[in-house]
């Protein structure tokens, strides 16, 4: 509470106020007006039809539950809305959604539900640029969402958050959502597979604030986002494999920051991906995407990551970059000890003396390994490291033409002594930080390609529900460099 007592003078307070200042006396005036917005909903749980009326249409599949060990709730046959079915379901139940467009923002708080669209391409949740999240799982373990599409949400297409163990996203499509496409925060034991995300200003796919994350992203396509993948302060058995990252501002960008818990980012394994043409100036983009623009794989301020056997080409800056993350105006410093079990309530105590923090905090990228990748057609260099030998980053057996510094694999080999890496890369890095990038395009207006019909879940109408559990970790040694598309 000491920092709560960090009272600042009225003059400073005036300087701080930039958006809303609620003037003294307003409270009493508003109170006299009745305080009519007591029951204001966030918009996150709005549905066309109330759950109450849904309950009246329940055909009562409890008999099915007796036979199968779970109940199946069909939308709209049993419940007019997805939210109605979710609210009525018990752990282990299956919710089946028929083709149609649903203008809902669904909140899920029941463990072990399986929420499945009957057809990925025609079960569409539409936020109409008014609703926040398509499906949001809050603090419920084991929830699987399968085989549907979420578009036009002001925040996220699909979202798992708040101390979750077990989540799964299978055969999902997220297009033109205002923050992330698929977003897991404070969640572990996750599988994201066979999914597609485009048109988000932050990342198409994101896993953040977890250690160990125990998560796998596989067989996904992420395009026309600010970042293809972003993961702040995540890692520990976190695998990004066998996927395509293209036409974003930047491709795969694990990173560290003080604004989330569980710092720093570490131990993310990136293997067997196609990463290309991530220099797209015509996407929506947050600041981090502008900063990272033009890089295929950028290990930014992270530790002990592995980028291996990826095919990376056509980038304005680097195919694979290892660099510090300069965080302006941090709220905390780099932790003295890294957390070993971190998920919820993870923000460390703020320092008593905020003035002691640096204006810019550099998260150093350390002891990362980049090997056996095939990297071509990078305008600055195929491989760039903006760190010194003491940071222990290593490079070997990559197929590449240019590096910064030159002879990188000789100076920083996977085996043997690390040598002085010079300062040339740092000079280039500073120039890139200062460089003005094409501004973000409004996510509501950005031009996106029609991805066409996406592969739908096999046997969606008959498959047994399988709540999410710890995924099977891949044997990455069996993954080879993928062929380039024709």
């Amino acid at each position, binding site marked *: *509470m000491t*920092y*709560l007592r*960090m*009272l*600042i*003078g*009225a003059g*400073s*307070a005036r300087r*701080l*106020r*930039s*958006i*809303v*200042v*609620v*003037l*003294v006396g*307003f*409270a*009493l005036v*508003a*109170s006299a007006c009745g*305080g009519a*917005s*007591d029951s*204001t909903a*966030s*918009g*996150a749980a709005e549905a066309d039809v109330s759950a109450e009326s849904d309950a009246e249409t329940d055909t009562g599949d409890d008999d099915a539950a007796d036979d199968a060990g779970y109940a199946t709730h069909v939308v709209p046959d049993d419940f007019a809305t997805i939210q109605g079915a979710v609210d009525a379901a018990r752990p282990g139940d299956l919710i089946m959604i028929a083709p149609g467009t649903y203008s809902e923002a669904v*909140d899920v*708080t029941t463990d072990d539900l399986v929420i499945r669209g009957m057809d990925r391409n025609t079960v569409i949740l539409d936020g109409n640029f008014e609703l*926040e*999240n398509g499906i949001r799982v*809050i*603090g419920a373990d084991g929830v699987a969402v399968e085989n549907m599409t979420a578009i036009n949400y002001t*925040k996220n297409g699909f979202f798992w*958050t*708040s*101390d979750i163990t077990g989540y799964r996203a299978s055969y999902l499509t997220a297009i033109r959502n205002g*923050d992330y496409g698929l977003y897991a*925060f404070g969640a572990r034991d996750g599988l994201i597979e066979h999914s597609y995300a485009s048109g988000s200003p*932050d990342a198409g796919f994101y896993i*953040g*604030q977890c250690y160990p994350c125990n998560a796998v992203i596989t067989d996904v396509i992420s395009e026309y986002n600010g970042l293809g993948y972003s993961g*702040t302060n995540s890692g520990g058995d976190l695998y990004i494999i066998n996927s395509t990252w293209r036409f974003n501002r930047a491709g795969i960008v694990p990173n560290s*920051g*003080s*604004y*989330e*818990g569980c710092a720093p980012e570490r131990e993310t394994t990136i293997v067997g991906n196609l990463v290309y043409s991530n220099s797209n100036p015509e996407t929506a983009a*947050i600041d*981090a995407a502008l900063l990272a623009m033009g890089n295929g794989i950028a290990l930014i301020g992270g530790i002990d990551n592995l980028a291996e056997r990826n095919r990376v080409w056509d980038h304005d800056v680097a195919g694979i970059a290892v660099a510090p993350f300069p965080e302006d*105006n941090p*709220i905390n410093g780099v932790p003295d000890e890294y957390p070993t079990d971190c998920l919820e*309530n*993870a*923000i460390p105590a*703020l320092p008593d003396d905020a003035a002691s923090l640096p204006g810019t905090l550099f998260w150093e990228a350390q002891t990362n390994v980049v090997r056996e990748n095939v990297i071509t057609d990078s305008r600055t260099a195929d491989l760039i490291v903006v760190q010194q030998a003491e940071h222990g980053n290593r490079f070997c057996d990559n197929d590449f033409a240019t590096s910064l510094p030159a002879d990188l694999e000789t100076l920083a080999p996977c085996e043997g002594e690390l040598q002085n890496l010079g300062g040339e890369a740092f000079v280039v890095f500073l120039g890139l930080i200062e460089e003005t990038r094409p501004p973000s395009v409004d996510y509501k207006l950005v031009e996106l390609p029609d991805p066409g019909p996406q592969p739908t879940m096999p046997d969606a109408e008959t498959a047994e529900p399988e709540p999410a559990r710890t995924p099977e970790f891949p044997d990455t040694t069996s993954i080879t460099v993928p062929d380039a598309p024709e």
Partner: protein
Amino acid sequence: MSENVGGVVTVLATILGALVLPAVLVGVLLTDADLPVFAPNGQTALVQAVDNAFAPVDAEIEAGTELVWLNRGRNGHNIIPEDRDPAWTFEDVAFAPGDEVSYVFQTPGTYRYYCSIHGTLTAGMPGVVVVTDPS
């Protein structure tokens, strides 16, 4: 007999009056308008909104203090007041990274709120402001 009944009625009425009248008076006295209101004291306290939590979650300030929520994270947030009684009539607001909102709490009490984008009152991104009586 009737005198006895009348006496009983009188006693009951007295007891009832003794119980009910104060309750009625308390009800009248504790309307929002009559809760203590403290003038702004010129002080400011800070809650930082990060990804995706308020830090600190529990803030304690004296009545009359202006509380500033500053978004230091990468995600946009909002503040949805749960406890509008006795005096928090703060409107639902959204604020982007780098932005801030503020409110002067003038009445002691406990005020719960949350970011509806990233949670509910009980999970995800809740917060509490405890406003103490400076006197």
